[in-house]
């Protein structure tokens, strides 16, 4: 088995590395470059904890090989806010509305919601719950997560209206 060299952007920084083809993107992020914010729950696409944004789209990083991310722009939970002390609107809403307890599922919810709310800030509770069915949380009972998401939707709507849609 031959390793492959890949070059990608992770949270705005260029990363060049050799990877084994079998290494999935989640393991590469955690072990290859030390970004342990991305969590692994099931490793077969069921729990959503490993969700990251690849070219702006939420994907399960356990179901994508690191070699396939060659040339891509990846955003992990560490890259959602502008800098270390900031929170993105969805992160701030999770804090305010108690959207997490242990935090294991949280990176997956935050990255998934970032795509969902940027694309559809008008989403209602019923659709929101359906779209979030691919992310499992064993602590919260989801009520806080849904409240946080609906509150954050308002912020994404205002950002879109004032033409500041670029901010995550």
């Amino acid at each position: 088995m031959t390793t492959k060299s890949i070059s990608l952007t992770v949270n705005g920084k260029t990363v060049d590395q050799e990877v084994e083809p079998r290494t999935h993107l989640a393991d590469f992020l955690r072990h290859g470059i030390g970004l342990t914010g991305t969590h692994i729950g099931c490793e077969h696409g069921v729990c959503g904890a490993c969700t990251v944004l690849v070219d702006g789209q939420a994907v399960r990083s356990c179901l994508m090989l690191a070699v396939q991310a060659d040339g891509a722009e990846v955003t992990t939970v560490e890259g959602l806010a502008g800098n270390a002390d900031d929170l993105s609107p969805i992160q701030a809403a999770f804090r305010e509305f108690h959207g997490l307890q242990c935090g294991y599922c949280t990176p997956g919810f935050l990255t998934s919601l970032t795509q969902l709310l940027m694309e559809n800030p008008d989403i209602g509770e019923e659709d929101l719950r359906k779209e979030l069915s691919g992310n499992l949380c064993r602590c919260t009972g989801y009520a806080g997560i849904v409240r946080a998401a609906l509150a954050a939707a308002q912020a994404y709507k205002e950002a879109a209206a004032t033409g500041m849609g670029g901010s995550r």
Partner: protein
Amino acid sequence: MKAAAFDYHRPANRAEALDMVGSLDNAKFLAGGQSLVAMLNMRYAIVDHLIDLNHVTDLAGIEMTGDRLRLGAMTRQRAVKDDAALAARAPIFAAALDYVGHFQTRNRGTVGGSLGHMDPSAELMALATLMDAEVEVQSKAQTRSLSIADYPMAYMTPAIEMDEMITGVTFALPGEGHGWGFHEHAQRHGDFAICGVAALMELAGGTISRTAITVFGIGMAPQRARAAEDMLASQTPGDDLYRAAADALDDLDYTTDAMASAAYRRRLAGVLTRRALADAARRAGGDRR
């Protein structure tokens, strides 16, 4: 778990991809990876070579001409669900795609990947069966097309050769103004359906001029409910008729597994058929909701 080691290949075009699959031992194509990578991680699948089709650009695309719809094999499920022209012409696609995994897996999952994997509860296989699809496959030596009736060979195994690649699938769309219904039952939204029913209906002067009913998730592959389709011909839509159609589903094959018994699946097939037909008749009658 972690995948066993393999070599990774990234062909730039079809010819390269077909060369590779024709010459490498124990090789598999990688499409969206939303089932295959999970199987590799769990070591249900162990390969020596993975041939990534994500850079073969001419395999993706949606073309609609008259009553034909062709989806390229590498068309993302999300692209099919979001296609506005298709949603206007045949809304059942967006409705069915909504049940395929979750939005995160549809961002990467492909049409050809779903057909190749052939999960018994796959909604895209159900639509292909409902709309008499033709699956195009290509090898170095030839290009051929298989009717969906001849496509399933065994459990999760289509009738295609080791050196062949699925390149696209063409659906026969129902007429303008048709009605449709799509219902499935699963433990959770996005989970594998225990039973699902897809139906199409066309009316002429208040009576049924054409129906198609497909039941899926009940056995190896989706099945057309021919007996029910036949008994609906030229009838006037109504609850008694849907109940009679639901009773005409005994000749399908229902399996028992850890999720449900064959008898429970048979019961669900009846209930979901009634609902799908009622929806289809209402929509064919002009209520498009």
